[in-house]
């Protein structure tokens, strides 16, 4: 029975470690890389969607400032981590490098716009927020294109 | 004892695992005292030769507390547990807490009910330690 306890503990520790370490894994081939780009774009779509929702609610007076701020800041951080995660993957071939440059452009752009949105929101700059929202929906279209192409 | 057999007045049967071991010990004041961690029997040498059946050991006490729990667990964890239990003893006496069988008042479905209040039993060392070292020092403990 003691043996069981040890095994159970180990399994739990391994499970937790695997959860923690599963964030970065190397891409194997070109198809795998495309998958990663597609996945990053998909994530970015949702992140932008979340920030847009919060910002629209804030503009409509539906949410209080700290709440919208938090949701937008979370989105901003998530976006940066998506960019960072994709950057950490080594592109396996020339085609992948082209894809990377293209994706990086789009994703970095979106992340930057999320920062703009957060800055405008915190300053209570409604015009700035509207502008950022407009930029974001353009970005969103590009991200979705990327997702479809990848 | 808790089984139907117990309702018969005559000889009643019981199994250690089912009726005694790991049962809750309850003082007459209704307080939880501990668990029955082990049983103590009178030393009866196995019946030799013709005198068969003469020397059935008698249940003398219920044992509880870390020093009874450790051996019950067995293995390395058990040894370790016993060592901790010994540390808690001021005199380092390795004998576990005994609750003589005469103190058993009733064995019910709730557990083994004793004829004395929990405070009069010897196995309150962990209780006293937790109380005097930590709980009593926090305001509002109701001490």
């Amino acid at each position, binding site marked *: 029975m003691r043996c069981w306890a040890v095994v159970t503990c180990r399994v739990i520790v391994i499970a937790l470690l695997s959860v923690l370490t599963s964030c970065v894994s190397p891409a194997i081939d070109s198809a795998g890389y495309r998958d990663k780009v597609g996945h990053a774009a998909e994530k970015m779509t949702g992140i932008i969607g979340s920030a847009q929702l919060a910002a629209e609610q804030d503009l409509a007076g539906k949410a209080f400032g700290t709440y919208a701020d938090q949701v937008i800041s979370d989105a901003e951080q998530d976006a940066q981590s998506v960019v960072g995660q994709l950057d950490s993957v080594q592109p396996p071939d020339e085609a992948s490098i082209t894809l990377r440059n293209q994706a990086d452009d789009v994703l970095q752009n979106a992340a930057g716009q999320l920062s703009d949105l957060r800055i405008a929101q915190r300053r209570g700059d409604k015009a700035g927020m509207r502008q950022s929202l407009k930029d974001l929906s353009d970005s969103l279209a590009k991200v979705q294109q990327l997702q479809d192409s990848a | 004892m808790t089984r139907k057999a117990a309702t018969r007045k005559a*000889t009643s049967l019981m199994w*250690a695992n*089912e009726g005694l071991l790991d049962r809750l010990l309850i003082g007459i004041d209704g307080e939880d005292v501990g668990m029955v961690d082990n049983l103590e029997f009178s030393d009866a040498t196995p*019946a030799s030769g013709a005198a068969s*059946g003469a020397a059935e050991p008698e*249940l003398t006490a219920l044992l509880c507390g870390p020093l009874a729990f450790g051996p*019950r667990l067995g293995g390395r964890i058990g040894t370790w547990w016993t060592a901790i239990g010994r540390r808690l003893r001021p005199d380092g006496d390795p004998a576990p807490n005994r609750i003589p*069988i005469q103190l058993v*008042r009733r*064995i019910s479905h709730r557990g083994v009910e004793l004829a004395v209040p929990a405070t009069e039993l010897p196995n309150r060392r962990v209780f006293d330690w937790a109380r005097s070292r930590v709980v009593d020092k926090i305001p509002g403990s109701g001490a």
Partner: protein
Amino acid sequence: MKATDLIGCAVYAADGEELGHVHDLRLESDGKPEDGDWRCRLTGLVCGSSAIGHRLGYGTGDMAGPWPLTSLLARWRRRSLTVPWRDVDELQPGRITLRTSRRQLEQMQR
């Protein structure tokens, strides 16, 4: 002598056949604790393959279910063997030797 000195011991018949490990103790008492002067004797060692049935409470058959367990554990229970204490010949740490053979024990239980 403590319960842990017995539970877990390997039990050998007089002819050296291993009968399994002790997993429970059979106790007999006259009357009940509330009658006063309660005495409880150790009359037998339950050995065999597994203690789980008894442990869970399916030893004496006062369980209402659930269905698969009741029959399964009752059958398991029947496979264990109770050795009367008076048949114990020698007690060594971790090892109990009997003065009888498995056949004699099984005949007695019937």
